[in-house]
């Protein structure tokens, strides 16, 4: 899908970051992100790779859509399912 998912960086070990996605922690590669990433930053994840560091001023706005989708909590919904799959790594 072409919707990346934002998460908060917990820890960085060279080119791998541990990232928290609404309570789900996952290792994400930093091999293609074009800015330094530090704990506390938010990144946009696509298939296990950070494709962007989200500027702090854009974080809340970026999270809003996902909060809405996750809050709807309907298992049959395509967007919610895709976002969950991206978070849980079960695509």
């Amino acid at each position, binding site marked *: 899908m072409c919707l990346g998912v934002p998460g908060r960086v917990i820890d960085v070990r060279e080119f791998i970051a541990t990232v928290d996605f609404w309570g789900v922690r996952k290792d994400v590669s930093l091999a*293609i*992100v074009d800015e330094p990433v530090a704990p506390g930053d938010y990144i*946009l994840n696509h298939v296990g*790779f950070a*494709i962007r560091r989200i500027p702090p001023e854009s974080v809340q706005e*970026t999270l*809003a859509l996902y909060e809405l989708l996750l809050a709807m909590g309907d298992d049959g919904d*395509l967007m919610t399912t895709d976002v969950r799959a991206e978070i849980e790594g079960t695509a």
Partner: protein
Amino acid sequence: MSGTPLQFRDPEQARAMSATLNRLVAQLDRPVAVMHVCGSHEQAIAKFGLRSTFPKALDVIMGPGCPVCVTDVPEVDEGVLLARQGLRIATYGDMLRVPGTVQSLADAQADGAKIDIIYGPKQAVEIARNTTEEVVLFASGFETTAVATAAVILDDPPPNFSVLSTHKYIPPVMEIVAEMPGSRIEGFLAAGHAAVITGSAVFEPFVERNRVPVVIAGFEPLDILAGLVELVELILAKTPKVVNAFPRCVTREGNLAAQEQLWRVFRPIGGRWRGIAHVPNGNLRLRDEFAHVDARKRFTIDLPSLWDFAPPALARQCICGDIMAGIRNPRDCRLFDRECVPENPIGACMVSNEGTCKIWHLYGGVPDLEASA
């Protein structure tokens, strides 16, 4: 789920934007069709019932924005043949049931082939590291996903790991759709998160050549409405250019480090997109320097050996290609919601969560405005 009420973070703003869109289209005073090329855009449009707020004269069509759907039949066949040779195939879940000439990867799996469902390319490398078997990553997706494939190829994967690239590159197919005889498309909405990688500049040569505006939009209902307002303004003003309506995420240059890795590993070549056309430069294949990781170079793939079987008759009635070209919609298909349903897909557009048919099956496509108001 089709009864989801409109949910906007800012209903006031949505109403204002919708009014602006209606006013602009009225000013244009004729029917106008625009195309987006992203399954997530279609999901958002359908899920939030956006079509019910669009002016009647504005047709917002989903183009070839589902990578699984445009993976061509012979490409699936290549994966099936490798699987039948006993190689382990690692692929994304929605690729599994996409029909090949005779079999899908799921059919091959039912016959005993080893297929691993992965979430990202790194998992395929992990599988290879933990086995002596040959592991082939069946790598589908547009440039955003191809970047991730490039990164694992550059990260010294084990010798038993290889890639069957069916990656596709979006900008060239927009040219094809824009130039199709009878094409009514006067503007394109481009997918925000793909443009995070490529930057908005990737569409500039397209706009220059085709004199058709491109607006990059995000995925929230408000982002999509704002993108459409921008697009119709450009059509009205007859000023074809690229406008980034998603600046909180996309820059003009994009992610240069990612682009460098993408083009170091892949080269664009012409090839067929399922149901659509031969797309010059539309397929991404591994460069010769990476022949050692290229499943097409490492293994013999004898496609004609599969074609001794006749393809299923129903598949010939599938109009997936016309749907992705924006010429027809799922309701025009004799199979849609009859023989062809997500549990038993005949065409690729009913397989993936990003396929127009599956999205319309779930959300009902064009809602009845008066009834749902």
